[in-house]
């Protein structure tokens, strides 16, 4: 039997609720009827996770509604690559700083996102460098905000 998306969602929420419940039980200040203290709202979220998780799971199990495909295999791959590029970009920001890391990140992302579109490499290079400089000028000079400088420079 094929596992439905809602079944996975329900099960994940249910499990998350149990994990949070265990963490909440370790709080120093306990729950009292006269003063619920810091436990109440985390417990409300636990209640929400467990009840809704079970509800979504059961609805999906006994329901006949067909689910649309969320992403095809290629889509999951693109999603994963996006996350990898962003993670590398964040690491590069901390090492090389904004001005060095950003043009490369922008070029990589725009090249990947341009797949199937009509886009020339030279325009993507111009965009990557131009946008980096534009953001730098706006953030640093117009708004007086500091951008990551990195540890190398």
């Amino acid at each position: 039997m094929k596992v439905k998306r809602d079944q996975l969602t329900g099960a994940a929420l249910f499990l998350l609720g149990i994990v949070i419940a265990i963490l909440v039980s370790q709080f120093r200040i306990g729950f009292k009827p006269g003063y619920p203290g810091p436990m109440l709202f985390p417990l409300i979220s636990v209640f929400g996770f467990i009840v809704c998780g079970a509800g979504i799971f059961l609805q999906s199990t006994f329901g006949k509604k067909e689910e649309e495909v969320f992403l095809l295999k290629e889509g999951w791959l693109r999603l994963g690559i996006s996350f990898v590029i962003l993670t590398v970009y964040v690491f590069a920001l901390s090492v090389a700083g904004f001005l060095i890391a950003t043009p490369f990140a922008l070029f990589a992302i725009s090249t990947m996102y341009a797949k199937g579109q009509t886009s020339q490499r030279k325009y993507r290079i111009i965009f990557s460098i131009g946008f980096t400089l534009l953001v730098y000028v706006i953030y640093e000079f117009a708004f007086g905000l500091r951008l990551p400088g990195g540890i190398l420079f």
Partner: protein
Amino acid sequence: MFEHLPYVIGQIAQPYNIVLLLVGNLVGIIFGAIPGLSGTLAVMLFMPMTFTMQAGSAIIFLLSLWIGGCSGAFIGSVLLGIPGSASAVATCWDGHPMAQKGQSGKALAIGMVASFTGTFFSSIFGALLSEKVADIAFMLGPWEYFALCFIAITMVLAISKGNMFKGLASAAIGIFLATVGYSPIDAEPRFVFGNIHIMGGLGMTVVLIGIFAVSHMIVEQAKGFKQLPKVDTKSIRGFGISLKEMKEQAGNILRSFAIGLGIGFLPGMGSGLSNLVAYSSARNVSREPETFGTGNPAGIWAPEVANNAAIGGAMIPMAALGIPGDATTALLIGALTIHGLEMGPMVFRNSGHIVYLMFAVVIVCAIVVLLMQTVGMRLFPHVLKVPYHYMYPALLVISLLNGYIDSNSIYKCGMMILFAVVGVAMSFGGLPTSPLILAFILEPILELNMLKAFQYTGTVTTFFTRPISGILCLLGILSIFSPAIRILWNRIKKMSAKSAN
């Protein structure tokens, strides 16, 4: 009210603020018009840029983005048949058929004038009413505040499309994320694990931009960008509508305005609901309801007046009670808190000038947006052609930088990517976004007021014995169970119909 006029004029007339207002409106219109983006997203993305600004400039920039976004949402609906945001869903139903019939110019003009009418007059109402509401709010205690926040969350759940469990789960995620850090009053560390970066909480910027903006763009890209339909630019000529046509719609405009203002005022509701209600009421009272959906101008006037009238409506509880009328006002409350402005009844005594600046900015923005749209009407189709492979990488970089600006720490950029994973998981599970935003922003107010109430009386019964909080709490509980009640009611009706037969 008028004693604040010099301050308000002084702020709006500053050259730097004028630039912010114009840029904010323009960016807002673009974000509103392009399917997949929205005014709310614009406010979310550009909010961290305002951290170093003075409060007045920050308010002007953020409100300009919001008003531009609300107003620009009809452009995508009319020209592409794809709503720019949830507030313009009903506009598609008649706006796009009109455009297909070669009346794009007329449909756009109706959208522009209707948006202006809703925003302009609702903000005047808001300015006049909010101080009166704030006077009443002085009579409210923590019980009532708790109940107001509670009902704001539960009403959003009640209108969660499709699955109530999913709406509740989204709110539960919001509550959980908001509890991370030291608890109010007792200072108990919750889910901190000794990590200094999250002891003060996860931070609105990191959580909301990560979950909504970053994940949205990544998922959209992974799904593959769809080719947008071609736009007929030849039919955009002149202003498109006459004064006579506007007069014919007077009743429709007034009714839709009242609907928008009323729904906007209700905590937790907003333009996403008002446009649908106004559209269906316009169709119900129409002498020719069969023409709705085929390009009836009344079907554009109604949703566009209502969704923009919700702006002024939503600003009343935001200013007077500190309770958001919708997801965007929730973000604005968060942004203003960063500038040391605590919305609520006391704001009129402590910073009344700021509140009236807000309403004045909305009024000015309504005029500026109308002018921009009138002049730039022929450029709308080009706005919709901005290539996604340039737009999304640019927005992704800005999103991550916002994480850094929020705390001057790269760590928060990493956290944002983590929350983007949470956002992808939510999209996978089909969980709605509004309950999370409201629950995340309202949880601290909700918890603080609840703990204060318990400190005063030491019992839960006071929440139900005080008339206002009692009614609001009961309404909140009823709205949680409203889908179940609706199913039960339909079954009873069916059974009684069967027995009558």
